């Protein structure tokens, strides 16, 4: 990464050193197949001889245990959750992602702050406020947005890990039952992603297709990036 750019002020107390690595983000709603694709891409890049580091939401050393515990209770407000996720994200960015980029790694991030922001806004956060909160975020080299219809998501969820309270937005009760709430909630998330697409320069990939077809598109976009 030759030019280091942040969405806002970044980390003013940090010296701006060179980051030879590349930051590639996979975005998309729940059940869109991000983890599967992340694994495939990782293996593919490693076979080419690249050092790869992967990271995902709620995987920070600092905040993930506390955040997991908070999600088990019923006092976690949307606002508190926004900021807790932002803490988790900042910890990973400063302590995992940036050091890896400095060391020349390709960092594959399974989601970035766009997901968190979409969820916050669906839960009533002021979009402008949410964007400014992430003013410390580094601009990725490539954001691949896996876009699928709710129908596709439902099928993946039913045949995969099953429905879950948070992925169905049951904390804000989009409907009285888990299934309907999931559909409403995911539709709203997709709307937010679509709104962000131009603003943040997402490369949209149709994820209503077989894993291999999606993977070959992703490879193409990553190869294009490597040529630059």
């Amino acid at each position, binding site marked *: 990464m030759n030019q280091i750019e942040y969405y*806002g*002020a970044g*980390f*003013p*107390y940090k010296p701006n050193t060179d980051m030879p690595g590349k930051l590639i983000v996979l975005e998309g709603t729940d059940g869109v197949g991000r983890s599967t694709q992340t694994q495939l891409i990782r293996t593919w890049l490693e076979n080419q001889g690249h050092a790869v580091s992967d990271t995902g939401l709620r995987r920070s*050393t*600092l*905040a993930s*245990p*506390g*955040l997991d*515990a*908070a999600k088990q*209770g019923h*006092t*976690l*407000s949307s*606002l*508190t959750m*926004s*900021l*807790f996720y*932002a*803490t988790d994200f*900042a*910890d990973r960015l*400063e*302590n995992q992602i940036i050091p890896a980029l400095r060391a020349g790694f390709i960092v594959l991030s399974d989601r970035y702050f766009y997901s968190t922001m979409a969820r916050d806004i669906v839960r009533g956060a002021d979009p402008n*406020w949410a964007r*400014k*909160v992430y*003013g*410390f975020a580094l601009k990725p080299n490539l954001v691949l947005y896996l876009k699928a219809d709710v129908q596709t998501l439902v099928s993946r969820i039913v045949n995969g890990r099953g429905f879950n309270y948070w992925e169905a937005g049951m904390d804000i009760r989009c409907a009285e039952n888990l299934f309907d709430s999931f559909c409403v909630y995911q539709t709203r998330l997709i709307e937010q992603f679509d709104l962000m697409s131009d603003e943040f320069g997402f490369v949209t990939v149709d994820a209503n297709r077989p894993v291999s077809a999606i993977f070959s598109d992703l490879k193409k976009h990553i190869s294009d990036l490597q040529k630059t």
Partner: protein
Amino acid sequence: MISKEKYPGKLIVVEGIDGSGKSTQVDLLYKWLLAEGKSVYFTEWNSSLLVKSTTKFGKKEKIFTPTTFSLLQATDFADRWENNIRPVLKAGGIVLADRYAFTAYARDVARGVDPNWVRNLYSFAIKPDLALYFQVPLDVAVERITSARASLKYYEAGMDLGLSENKVTSFRLFQQRIINEYERMIDEFGLVVIDGTLPVETQQNQIRLIAKKLLHRWKGLPPPIPPQRSHHRKIKIESDFSERESA
């Protein structure tokens, strides 16, 4: 800070560096307001149970950066704001806060985060009805802190900034930066300055006068109806109750 929402309650906050005496004063104010028959809720900086284990872990492992420290304290504040502060303000009670968003504006900026960024973080919260700033010279605060405590803690002393290997020196340098930020905020947010070097009683009398003015003619949430045998309540308050009962 400065959400446009209006609440029937009153928010009073105290600010100042460690050792400025603000906690002593807010405690006395709290007791006085209770004795006056007010509905009062007291809240302290960094006291959310939801966030506690994470803060403790981060401090113990020394893994905070200025940004994560700032975000986690905002998380802590958000939890208290949603679950404690805001409901009481909506109900018409008085909230006393030992430190408020200004603490973040002062400390986090002293640690090097962007001033506008941290101001945005807290923009969901309201501007207090009264913000008291306890102004003391650095030497006074340092003397109070170092004589009262066995040793300064790592983050308290700002050791994460690498200003000095020596804890007391680091503490002094860090606190001076915080003072500089507070001084800038006096005008920005209309902080009411209290001279923290005055005797405790003198400061408390000043504060009660200011609070009296603020609460003059204000009708907040009455306290619970006292048991029948209690005679110590003031007549004025009892008449408030009878109005409420007949309403």
